[in-house]
């Protein structure tokens, strides 16, 4: 009977049925483990929950408070600074390295491993090393180099303007290996036949890059733009580990939204306010992602 029913379905109906069968475990998993807690956060954002006492419904009070909170706006601006600087800079560097590395034969594996190693180590240990690199003389490596070149010492992490880029640098550094590998996998996934055809047509190197490599890399580029943007908007580890006491200082100049959420929830136990910030972060991420997918015309 079931088979009879199956045979009477059209091909597209059959495929849709298969799609949903394959999706069953995922739908169950995401609904219970991911969506339920997420919706729960949305609800908590409308309450004054402090972890222990009963949560009281307070409407949009947490959101109103956010609008008045100067730290929130500072943090909001910082978060976008990480995004707008981090995503383009890291992707351009990663593409250039991947594009040329792909053509390298001699010691290829070794050089690629060099670029990937930062990604293999724990953020805590690496953040500490970077923090030391930024120290003033007599120990800071960067300042010692500046001093050897006869240039003025820079405050780096002790400056309200330099600290954010100084923290962004190791974040870009840590993710570069990942982006390079994805770019290279994407470049390798382009069938050689396309290149051969182009070469037969007499296309030059730039033309091949512009008309074949980049268009065919579109799925890879979409993926990296979206994932990197999410990553920079959710930056936490580097800031937490590179500022004293993980405070996102000096004077909140490096504090991103996720760190503020963490402090509000786990230091002050103000879960309601932390949840409201989470909802805002979620909406920002959703809008930006949808925008990117639309602009890059992903299917």
């Amino acid at each position, binding site marked *: 009977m079931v088979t009879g029913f199956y045979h009477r379905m059209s091909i*597209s109906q059959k*495929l849709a049925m*298969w*799609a949903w069968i*394959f*999706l069953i475990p*995922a739908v169950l*998993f*995401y609904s219970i*483990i*991911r*969506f339920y807690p997420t919706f729960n*956060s949305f609800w908590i954002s409308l309450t004054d929950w402090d*972890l222990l006492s009963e949560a009281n419904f307070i409407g949009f009070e947490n959101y109103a408070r956010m609008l008045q909170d100067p730290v929130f706006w500072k943090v909001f601006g910082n978060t976008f600074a990480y995004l707008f600087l981090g995503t383009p800079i890291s992707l351009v560097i990663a593409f250039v390295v991947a594009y040329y590395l*792909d*053509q390298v*034969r*001699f010691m290829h*594996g070794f*050089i690629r*491993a*060099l*670029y*990937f*190693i*930062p*990604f293999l*180590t*724990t953020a*805590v*240990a*690496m953040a*500490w*090393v970077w923090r*030391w*690199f930024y120290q003033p003389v007599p120990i*800071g490596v960067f300042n010692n180099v500046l001093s050897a070149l006869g240039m003025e010492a820079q405050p780096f992490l002790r400056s309200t303007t330099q600290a954010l880029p100084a923290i962004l640098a190791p974040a870009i550094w840590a993710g570069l*290996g990942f982006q390079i*590998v*994805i770019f*290279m*996998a994407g470049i*390798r*996934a*382009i*069938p050689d036949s396309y290149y051969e055809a182009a070469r037969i047509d007499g296309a030059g190197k730039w033309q091949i890059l512009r008309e074949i490599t980049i268009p*065919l890399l579109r*799925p890879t580029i979409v993926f990296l733009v979206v*994932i990197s943007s*999410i990553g920079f908007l*959710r930056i936490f580890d580097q800031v937490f580990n590179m500022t004293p006491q993980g405070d996102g200082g000096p004077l909140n100049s490096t504090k991103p939204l996720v760190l503020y*959420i*963490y402090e509000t929830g786990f230091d002050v136990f103000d879960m309601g306010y932390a*949840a409201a910030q*989470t909802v805002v*972060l*979620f909406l920002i*991420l959703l809008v930006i*992602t949808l925008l990117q997918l639309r602009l890059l015309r992903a*299917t």
Partner: protein
Amino acid sequence: MTVQATPVDAYESGARIGLFRGNKPIRPGRIVMWTLLLMGGIAMVMPFIFMISTSLKYPWEIYDLRLIPNEPTLENYIFVLADGRFFRWFLNSLLIATLTTVSVVFFDSLVGYVLCKFDFRGRWLVFIAILSTLMIPTEMLVIPWYLMSQSFGWLDTYWGIMFPGIMTGFGTFLMKQFFESVPDDFIHAARIDGLNEFQIWWQVAMPLVTPALSALAIFVFLGNWTAFLWPLIVTTDTDLYTIPVGLASFSVEAQVQWELIMTGASLATIPTLVVFLVFQRYIIRGVVLTGLKG
């Protein structure tokens, strides 16, 4: 129309002589490029070298950022390894990261494939919904997960540490994008040849995306290897700690024992390096499609 896919190591096909892919003569510009890439790579690993160097120093020397320790010592390694718990944590991390990786590679590539190659109502919505799981910081999820684990009796179990990560939006998205490079013609042809949908995915599509699968395996393994917050929250029993949670014990009140953290972090890099070296060979192994003639 006959379609066949033959995975071939890109470096094994054709003449491979000299510094670069292809058999072009070496030009000075290319040597400059190679040198720049190498120098960039060396700059990239400097912090890593400092980490290893610090792990070989006595505590009173670590604040001197000298690359070669004045008085190199293995004392930190002896201390960390003599504490038998480190080995236990190491095995815990290895088990959790391996099982999670297997699960993620399987499920994420299946879901990514479905979202890429099947046309059905609600596809876009499912995709965005799965992608949206990347947009909530873990910090806000740990309390609901903790309550959930408590009611299911998953506290202090390996499964409790693993369950939130057995599928990921990240991997689903990655695989969905990479399945786009698999021509639809292959799938139609396989369907005509009588393969069922599961077989088409497993036998036809999957071999064509091995670079992406390898990349995914590396990322998932690493992600789990370094995961900190959730394993910390869900475990009470020190025997179930993972490496990052265990390493945090070296950060004691008002003082962090950096030389020990660097030592633990250096040791913790060994398996990730092995995983990377094993899988990276598959990433570079290009897939050459033949017989694709309109």
